[in-house]
């Protein structure tokens, strides 16, 4: 299995949509073959259209607010004592997370194909919130599928979706989290694909959704590359990019522009959700060696039992609480371009406390996982190493959990 240079990773799949011959694909009911093919044709045409790219960039700039900040975390660097710690503050984006890029692109595509309704899944509620924002912006009706457990633990985002006029449909089946929300969303699309567009909230699902999402979030690394050159005059010689990985949309977008660099120069570190320290359950299929299986239309490493039933996950962070992982990351793991590890719930919480203590930055529980590993590793790295963490979400949505775990005072003071 080999990563090719000079070709975007999203375009390195084979005819049937498999990366490395075995990750991804289109394991979908016959009914969805046609709408998926239509979307493929549309996307392949538009991603090469100068007009479409201009339109995308206009919305990214004027509405999402690109570029997001690239800042040095001076106090944290001093506290840790090792590599220079920087952050790409993607949570600056309109709505407070990277999910806005994919949502905007899907709405642009839906609008062009004449669809009136757009549906989407959500875990942490960011994908749903952003889709509801974009749908409102582009005049589309919006339905968001969300696990009942996630609705309870991510109330601020649920309120935002409703405020934007979206129907939030609670999903009660299975573990009542993201995995069930995606299933229910796909089922709804099976029954309504003639009138409705679907947005998959991460780089998961049938191959075309993986590609569209990866193409959209790559905005993050496009900006970062420019910012690095402005700051250092070049892409630094020792650069490490840390990102949390749930489905894998923010990490893929954070890395994409640096794919062709030698990993000795630009290393990618993906941090999965290890779950509670005392629990066997986790959401870290790459770290803990889960087997390849089929989930939501794609072959990927996925938590499952011997029979092939998908296993329930556990993580404090709803956005990472997914048993599978993007085929793109499976591909990056097996080609050894990226390295994957996990942080536990407790480690993420601790990292959140450290970051908020030293910096005026409030990463949500998802990027707190990445901060945890970055802080640990930065200690041992030389001062000329540039460590960058993608702070891809804001902790506002986690108020309830943070208050419960760390106490009211702590949350208020931030």
């Amino acid at each position, binding site marked *: 299995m080999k990563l090719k240079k000079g070709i975007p990773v999203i375009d390195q799949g084979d005819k049937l949509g498999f990366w490395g011959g075995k990750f991804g694909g289109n394991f979908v009911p016959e009914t969805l073959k046609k709408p998926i093919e239509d979307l493929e044709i549309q996307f392949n045409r538009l991603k090469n259209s100068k007009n479409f790219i201009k339109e995308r960039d206009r919305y990214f700039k004027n509405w999402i607010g690109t570029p997001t900040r690239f800042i040095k975390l001076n106090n944290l660097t001093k506290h840790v004592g090792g590599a220079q710690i920087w952050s790409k503050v993607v949570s600056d984006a309109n709505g407070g997370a990277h999910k806005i890029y994919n949502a905007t692109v899907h709405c642009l595509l839906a609008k062009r194909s004449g669809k009136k309704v757009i549906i989407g899944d959500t875990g942490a509620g960011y994908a749903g919130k952003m889709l509801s924002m974009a749908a409102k912006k582009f005049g589309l009706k919006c339905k968001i599928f969300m696990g009942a457990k996630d609705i309870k633990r991510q109330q601020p985002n649920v309120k935002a979706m409703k405020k934007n006029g979206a129907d939030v449909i609670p999903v009660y089946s*299975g573990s009542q989290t993201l995995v069930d929300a995606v299933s229910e969303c796909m089922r709804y699309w099976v029954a309504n694909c003639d009138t409705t567009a679907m947005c998959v909230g991460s780089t998961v699902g049938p191959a075309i959704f993986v590609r569209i999402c990866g193409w959209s979030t790559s905005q993050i690394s496009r900006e970062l590359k420019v910012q690095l050159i402005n700051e250092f005059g070049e892409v630094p010689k020792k650069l490490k990019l840390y990102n949390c990985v749930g489905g894998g949309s923010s990490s893929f977008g954070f890395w994409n522009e640096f794919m062709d660099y030698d990993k000795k120069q630009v290393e990618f570190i993906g941090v999965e959700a290890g779950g509670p320290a005392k629990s066997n359950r986790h959401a870290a299929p790459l770290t803990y060696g889960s087997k390849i299986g089929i989930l939501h239309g794609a072959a990927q490493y996925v938590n499952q039992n011997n029979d092939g039933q998908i296993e329930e996950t556990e993580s404090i962070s709803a956005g990472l609480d997914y048993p599978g992982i993007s085929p793109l990351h499976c591909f990056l793991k097996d080609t050894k371009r990226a390295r994957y590890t996990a942080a536990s719930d407790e480690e993420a919480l601790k990292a959140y406390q450290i970051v908020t203590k030293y910096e005026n930055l409030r990463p949500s529980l998802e990027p707190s996982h990445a901060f945890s590993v970055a802080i640990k590793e930065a200690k041992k790295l030389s001062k000329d190493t540039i460590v960058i963490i993608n702070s891809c979400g804001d902790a506002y949505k986690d108020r309830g959990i943070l208050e419960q775990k760390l106490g009211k005072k702590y949350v208020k003071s931030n």
Partner: protein
Amino acid sequence: MLNPISLAFKKAKKEKRPALLTYTVAGDSSKKQSLEILKAISNYADILEVGVPHNTPVADGGQIQTSAYRAIKNGIKMNDIFKIVSDFKKSKNSKPVIFMGYYNMIFQYGENNFLKKCKKSGVNGLIVVDLPWPENKIFSKKCKKNSINFIQLLSPTTSNKRLKRITKDSHNMIYYISMLSTTGGKLKVSPKKILANYNKIKKISPKKNCVIGFGITEKTISKFKNTDGLVVGSQICKEITRSLNNRQNPVINVNKMVSKLRKKIS
């Protein structure tokens, strides 16, 4: 020699009626009970679809999901499902069995092992909901080699070009999904329109047995009498749930329902 599935269609045709195909989930609500249900309804049904429960089904509606979750919660494993089929096949009045499920269950078992086990326990056909054409080309060939019927699915969104190529690659049974819906949806398309699509498929592929599924219930089944076969699934699963909720015996109630279905098309 005709395979058991084709034979079942031939028999129904002789009786001038469509074949009746039922769908029940293996292990719903227990291993024993699902076997009893199969034995009972095989007096009226011609072909039995046995659902292999999966916990992330992307094409099943509420009724079948409920049945599947119930079976999984009760601990059903792939090997138990094979055992249910082989026990059923030993019974007096057994009928052809088609597995219906999702590809991950086959993938984890290993395609070759899975087919070997199918053959051994008496499974006659396979419907793999999320392994469409052309992705299923290699696997369906393997099925054919093992004398197992791989049943291709067609839907209202299938283009004519695709339809021709799929039917060409299909074995002797095809499954037409009546409408854009998950299983158990209400019939939202007129029978006339469904039959028009059905006839289009028959014109392209007259020799292959084509069944219609999705939205077929006691209420709607008699409108499709002039077809090769009809599948009833969600309504049966719903009946099992209803029986359990009312502390009644699902075997008796489901049996009654299937006998009624059979009368409506005879």
